[in-house]
């Protein structure tokens, strides 16, 4: 892969805690946009942003329709909408039917990000109770991006990372605590 311009993260059950750890470990100088799709069941993305912002030095904002993905910023998918990235690295939303019983769906975000960023993308699948993200992670790899999967043995719920491993495979299958240090190394060196 070429030097990463974006990091897309997908998680579900147990995802909030995992995100706190991951985002908390990120170097705020990171020259990449961070896009998060987390099935929370909550309808209020503002609360999710606030919760996450307490644990990281990076600004955490809702991914706004037509807004540009910014380096060093965490953009969170709003609930009830699929989040997509266009080729000009701005966000689009859709109310298309749920994918993997989810909206936002990790697969939808990952597939569009793979199209937009090609080989300059890192995809991460963490803890969760369904298979969302596995196909999207395969799309990312097919477009030359890098795949990181939380070690299922380390995950609060292992279904999602295990599905990602089975369907997409991983360049790095590592415990949660090792993900942020790896990202800092990949993006800042």
């Amino acid at each position, binding site marked *: 892969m070429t030097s990463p311009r974006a990091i897309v993260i997908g998680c579900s059950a147990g995802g909030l805690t995992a995100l706190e750890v991951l985002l908390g470990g990120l170097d705020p100088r990171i020259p990449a946009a961070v896009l998060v799709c987390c099935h929370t069941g909550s309808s209020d993305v503002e609360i999710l942003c606030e919760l996450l912002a307490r644990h990281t030095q990076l600004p955490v904002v809702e991914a*706004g*329709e*037509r*807004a540009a993905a910014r380096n060093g910023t965490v953009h969170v998918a*709003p609930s*009830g*909408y*699929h989040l*997509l*990235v*266009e*080729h000009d690295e701005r966000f*689009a*939303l*859709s*109310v*298309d*039917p749920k994918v993997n019983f989810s909206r936002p769906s990790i697969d*939808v975000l990952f*597939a*569009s990000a793979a*199209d*937009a960023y*090609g080989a300059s993308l890192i995809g991460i699948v963490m803890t969760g109770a369904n298979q969302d993200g596995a196909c999207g992670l395969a799309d990312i790899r097919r477009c030359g991006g890098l795949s990181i999967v939380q070690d299922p043995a380390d995950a609060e719920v292992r279904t999602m990372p295990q599905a990602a491993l089975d369907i997409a495979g991983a360049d790095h299958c590592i415990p949660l605590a090792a993900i942020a240090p790896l990202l800092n190394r990949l993006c800042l060196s």
Partner: protein
Amino acid sequence: MAVSPDDIEIELFLRALQQRHGYDFSQYAPASLKRRIVQLSHSQGMRTISGLIERVLYEPGFMSVVLEGLSVPVSEMFRDPQVFRALRDHVLPVLASYSQVNIWLAGCAHGQEVYSLAILLEEAGLYDRCQLYATDFNDAALWQAQEAIYPAREAQLWSRNYAAAGGAHSLADYYSARYELIKLDERLRRNVIFANHNLVTDDVFCEAHLVLCRNVLIYFGDTLQDRALNLFRDSLRRGGFLCLGIRESIDFAPSARDFSAVDAKLRIYQLGNKS
């Protein structure tokens, strides 16, 4: 970098739709459109998008399948109930000062929004002075909207939404249930005209006091979004209202300057009245 085969196919597919059938999707937001086209090709058992092109060119009747696949009929009644509450509290009292009110629901899909608004107007005692125009570019969706028949499993969520929107009765007062379906009261559409209208190519057709167009423009690229907003501006009376989806952004559209926010968070705007 070389253009990928599927992006070339999509461009050719869109050109075929436009030149053969007059439907222009080229200004749609590309990411969602691509997803839909790929899904359409899969649902039609095609290995590639090129297979769709042949059928669009040569198979009579296939265009309606394409329109079905490329339009978004997903909605619910009283979606985002707080919006309907705000319409009731802040917009309907203004509409009540007119003896005749025109309302345009643009991109009405299967009609859930139309009937939600109809109920709101009915309960405010305004329905009989209103003319509602419900438009969509997809005839099959319009047909379904007129039928007003929906899966019964939706009723629970819609009833919750209706209550949260401040509904005065029970949603069940407005439909009859049979087997797995509900059918909305036909009286709700006595002042509704359903008509085909394409925001991409068609023009102003009424002078409206309120335009409702929620989660339609999110599928449009910037240029097309601005065209639609211009169309809404030209259709609205001065001081008329525009209601968009609650996550939509018009910040990048030049025509946004013609509107001022009534409730910025709920995306309810008014034409003119800039302070």
